[in-house]
């Protein structure tokens, strides 16, 4: 039962350069994923809509949360792309504030200068009298991370969740028996069980579209290229360049989230460029795949079982007659 420990260190956690191969798919195409650059997200929710349309996801309530422009709340069985809206009041790092007359600034001109030259860029955010920016919105389109070591996939007892040839993680709906184990196993709270249907659903990274050489619907619909789709290695490269550019432009808060193969899930297939701590966007700051500790769990359970047997037999040992 402790087999996991012996199957090479990287079966359960750590870097794994060939996920599809490790899952038993030789000659797989390069692993693909998403790079979601939240610094250019305008919160239009085109991705949410495109995803729902393409994947024929049922309507799941038309409520107003009253907390922001986000009325979707989070990912789940019926939301595979979720745009988070974070309203923050200053002071902020990031682009230096314009001195005064901020109201007259031409934002398009300012935006076109952003990140083009060396040195800190000027910007058009409203400023307080002491020259600090006052309010900003962070918008970010969240999605299943298609983890290198996916907790959901590891714990699925039926094999309904599987690793595709593209390195993504997909539920086979004709297999899932709705045990719901994958739901609390995901360190990001992505996957969910659908009411009435009983099975779990999540982002497939548009497996059907990938199969015919199309990019996923969300990336296709994103008007700002905040959502970029492509081979993971290429995306990582592009993301590192983008962070460097933003840093040079004075946006020192820019950081990558989930791109490192060294992280607790072995690197996410869908990673992000964020402008604040991950938890601000509702993301866990240091997620770990739960099965990393599974060999230890089995060992302890075995020891506990032996202890139980010893206790019972010990209790019986004193003969009555």
């Amino acid at each position, binding site marked *: *039962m402790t087999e996991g420990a012996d199957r090479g260190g990287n079966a359960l956690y750590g870097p794994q350069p060939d996920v599809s191969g490790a899952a038993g798919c030789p000659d797989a195409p390069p692993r693909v994923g998403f790079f979601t650059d939240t610094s250019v997200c305008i919160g239009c929710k085109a991705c949410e809509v495109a995803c729902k349309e393409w994947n024929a996801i049922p309507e799941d309530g038309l409520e107003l949360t009253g907390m922001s422009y986000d009325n979707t709340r989070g990912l789940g069985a019926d939301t595979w792309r979720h745009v988070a809206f974070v309203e923050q009041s200053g002071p902020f790092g990031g682009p230096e504030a314009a001195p005064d007359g901020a109201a007259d600034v031409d934002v398009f001109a300012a935006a076109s200068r952003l990140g083009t030259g060396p040195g800190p860029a000027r910007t058009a955010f409203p400023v307080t009298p002491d020259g600090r920016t006052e309010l900003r919105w962070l918008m970010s389109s969240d999605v299943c991370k298609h983890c290198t070591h996916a*907790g959901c996939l*590891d714990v699925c*007892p039926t094999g309904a969740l599987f690793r595709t040839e593209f390195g993504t993680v997909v539920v086979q709906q004709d297999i899932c028996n709705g045990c719901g184990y994958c*739901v609390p196993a995901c360190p990001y709270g992505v996957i969910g069980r659908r009411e009435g249907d009983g099975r779990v659903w999540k982002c497939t990274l548009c497996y059907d579209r990938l199969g015919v050489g199309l990019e996923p619907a969300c990336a296709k619909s994103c008007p700002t290229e905040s959502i970029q789709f492509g081979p993971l290695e290429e995306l990582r490269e592009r993301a590192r360049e983008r962070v460097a550019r933003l840093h040079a432009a004075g946006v020192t808060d820019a950081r990558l989230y989930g791109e490192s193969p060294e992280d607790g899930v072995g690197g996410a297939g869908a990673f992000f460029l964020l402008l604040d701590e991950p938890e*601000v966007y509702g993301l866990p700051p240091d*997620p770990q795949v739960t099965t990393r500790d599974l060999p230890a769990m089995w060992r302890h*359970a075995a020891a506990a079982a032996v202890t139980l047997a010893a206790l019972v037999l*010990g209790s019986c040992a004193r003969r009555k007659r």
Partner: protein
Amino acid sequence: MSESDVTRDGVRGARPGREAVTGDRAGRRRRRGGRGERPVVPEAEFGSYYGLPVISKPPWEPLDIAGYLYLGGLAGASSLLAAGARLTGRPGLAAPALTAAAGAISLSLAALVHDLGRPARFLYMLRVCKPTSPMNVGSWLLAAYAPLTLTAAATGVAGRYRLLGAAATAGAAVLGPAVATYTAVLLSDTAVPSWHEGHRELPFVFAGSAAGAASGLALAVAPAGQAGPARRLAVLGTALELGAFHTMKRRMGLAARPFGQGRAGLLVRTSELLTAGGAVLGLCSARDRRLAVAAGTALLAGSAALRFGVFHAGVASAEDPAYTVLPQRERLEALASRP
């Protein structure tokens, strides 16, 4: 969501540590040496997305799954007790333990199937063999254990096929302890903080609790003259359970808190009282039938309360982003401060 107002000075009236205005209160605030912010509860200072949970809580019915954990424990330990009683010539103890194991495992299987989103597909659990999935391992375990238990009980009741009965009893006793403890792995192998962080001790807690339940049932129904093992097992099991639980809570840091709060806290405290009380009462029950029944009932109820308490503590820890975010933040900061 919350009763907060957004003003020019930020968000007012939101619960501390909960609002999305986090840039200046999470990492940033500390880096800048702290500006004049409204005080927040120091240990609860963390960023979150409108206080929404980070992970999803399990979609399980408490009655189904906590009941499943409880009945599995009762069955597994009862099988062991039955085998021990049989070996040492205590038929009056073996018979009820065999029946208890068969009844409990049947009910627990029913609870498990009932909780599936697609109950008709429950056999899909056995379409693969997958050691990384405790639920899969458990399904195989039960697929072997349940028939053995039922055979053992049936031959016992019928009083025929003694050899088959003995073999089945022995087989069930070998698998029983695994059935009682694997459920701890089932819970721990999730992202739920209060379950995962206890992954080392939880199997021992469940083992102790299973011993308590099985001895309780035996105490309540077996003739006093043959219930000696049950009385001793009640004490040993209780000691194991309480000791392991204490160690677990001490070692798991913040994630221990849900075990002392709200519904989970109430259940855990009740369980400790019932279990300890039942074990002590059991010791004095050698000559008094009514005492034995009371002790047995207390032990059974205590074990059930423990499983429900653990279940609810996990759900509470999943619902509050603090339990997910704060320990992870701490881990990152510890890493960063290492040279």
